């Protein structure tokens, strides 16, 4: 998971709006750091990180809603949509990974590797160890008929994923055409200086 960047320049005795602007700008930069993977459909982990950074920015704008300019609210809705689009993509990726594990032979190197990675924790694997164990349990292997169903389901998931990726990508580029980043920076610039009360 993408680690949040520490934020510099906060002053806890300064108005909240000023600090909120600094935090939101940092989160916006983080989001755009991962945006280089938008055109890489199978950069599974990086697209997931893009989602995490979109979520962080959205939450920041929501938490500080009372302190930030009203224009930020429109950005919240777009970020929510991005997060949802990348969310369904991630759900597809998790399910696809699980199905591949189920369909591999029990002693396959793929399964052993998945187990080994998942044991390293959430930072290394997006599949929890217990979930991998439940699916590659040698006492509960799928029958031939069940494997056929799983293969078909995998194929559908892959098709669905391709559609979800396209929907996300189109939305992303629409936002860039609308100068999403620039508009948000301009709105946040309004609270750059301490607000006189």
């Amino acid at each position, binding site marked *: 998971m993408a680690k949040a960047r*520490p934020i510099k320049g906060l002053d806890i005795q300064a108005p909240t709006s000023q600090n909120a602007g600094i935090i939101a700008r940092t989160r916006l930069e983080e989001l755009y750091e991962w945006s280089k993977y938008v055109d890489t459909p199978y950069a599974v982990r990086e697209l997931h990180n893009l989602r995490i950074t979109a979520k962080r920015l959205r939450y920041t704008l929501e938490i500080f809603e009372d302190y930030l300019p009203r224009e930020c609210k429109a950005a919240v809705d777009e970020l929510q949509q991005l997060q949802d689009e990348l969310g369904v993509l991630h759900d597809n990726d998790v399910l696809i990974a699980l199905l591949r594990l189920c369909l591999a032979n029990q002693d396959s190197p793929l399964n052993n590797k998945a187990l080994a990675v998942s044991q390293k924790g959430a930072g290394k694997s997006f599949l929890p160890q217990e979930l991998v164990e439940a699916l590659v349990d040698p006492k509960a292997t799928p029958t031939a008929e069940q494997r056929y169903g799983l293969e078909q389901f995998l194929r559908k998931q892959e098709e669905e994923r391709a559609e979800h990726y396209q929907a996300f990508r189109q939305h992303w580029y629409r936002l860039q055409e609308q100068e999403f980043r620039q508009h948000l920076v301009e709105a946040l610039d309004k609270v750059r200086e301490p607000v006189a009360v």
Partner: protein
Amino acid sequence: MTRQRNSTRRGKVPKQEQAVELQEQTAQAGQPVELQESAKQPDPTAVQQEPATQSGQQEPTTQPDPTAVQQESESATEAKMMTCAAIDIGSNSTEVTIAQCTPHHLDILQEQSRMIRLGESVKETGEITPDKRDAVIATVRQYLDMAKQNNAERVLAVATQATREARNRDSFLEDIQRETGQVVNLISGNVEAALTYHGATCGLDIPSDVGVLDVGGNSTELVTAHDNHIAWLVSLPIGSGWLHDNYLTSNPPKEDEIEDAQEFLHDYLQALRVPELPPALIVTGSSAKELLKICKQALHTEEGSSTMTRQDLVACQGLLHSLSAQEIAQRYGQTRERARVLPGGALLILEMMNYLHQDEIRVTDRGVPEGVLLANARYGDKWLDHEEVKVEDERVGQVPALPNKESTQVQRSGETFAESGHEELPRRVKKFVEWRSKVLKHEDVEDVHKMRVASRRLRATMDAYEATCKPKPFTKAYSSVKEAADLLGRVRDADVMLQHIQEQEEQTPTAEQAGMQWLVERLQFYRKEQVRALDRFLQNFDDAALQQQVETSSTKGVSAHGKGQTH
């Protein structure tokens, strides 16, 4: 796979429902007219063919002459049946009811309602904007024509909360009078409540002790009656449109908006002091009427019934929180404007039911316009001054103060970062721990989702305010919230996957289903393990300790981390 942001997934939409074609009528100002018209052909022989007169008093605040009122009342009781029209210029809709009236009975000839949403313009600008004014004038003109067609002898008009609040109310009412000739009485909230009671209880077989609730656009009236007389009443400056404009602005409303609205209503109603809980509750207002329609259509509740249970309303809410206003309008024959304020109406009714300890309500079509007609039939020309209408004594309940959002915002903009963190962090902890007991009850899988969302918001708030916190207690608190969030996330992710697979299974050829069933079994096995782990964690979770860690950590003034967030 669809991730549902909404918490009320239980309220699924029946697949076979047909979209109802909207028969929106376009009136002179181009506004849609609600599908609420019912018309009976008047019996021309039953009404006196006298020229219509227009009556009303601009200032309902003058002291009545009790003797005169009494005389009016008695003479009115003996009066013959008279055809009258009542126009109600409300915050959401402008309505008309035309009826043959006696003091205790109304024979409705025609009624219509048009959604204009005066309250929206008052909220945005503090005034009734020219487009809204023109829409009202066009509607009043149309209603006066209807009254004439029905040979109404008298037309009475009242305006309520949105007009009361508008800075330009005087010129607005003058414009209506100048353009249409109709005098409109600006009535107080208490008069509105009393008229609602008279209208809503007319002709119903109800107990003599009862509560009447009118959920309007910008106001809500609550009346309790004892022995068929008003015992207590209050007019609250909140309504379905008000909740929409102040809290439920997204379409459909977002989970956090709903939570905030719910929290506001809960706190607000706690400050209300009803002297005695009514044994039954009658609810009126367009929101209640339209929710009943949706209930019948979507939940297939009994056709002739006017009763809605708490479960019915919760199911309706599920729809309103999952579907956009446009979809609600298409599926359930609502105008889009009405569909947008219905979530506010449903929430308000449910919170009132909680507050008044009611498990079901009875919905009636009757309200202010019918109350106006009855009051006029009972008390004559001075109907507005009669003590059963102009209630100004100890029966008037105290209105709890509304939090002033604007002044709060101005005040907040001056807060230091440390001060706002000190206020916000404990609030988020409270919201998070509130879900613990619900999740442990295992009554609804959605509770896990809601607690997870609360945990995410708490973590995000902690991330945002880390710089204002002392590191040691902060880190402790943060790690326990993170652990809870991880465990909740595992159960929730399993639920989302299971739901997705089961939905797809329904559309999958039988030959392929065996594989999906195998996967479902394995995931259910995994989920069970995760639920056990979550239960163990939550059973031992110390709410008070977390609250204390956060309060100790958060400081109003002393320099804390000061270097920003690293989580």
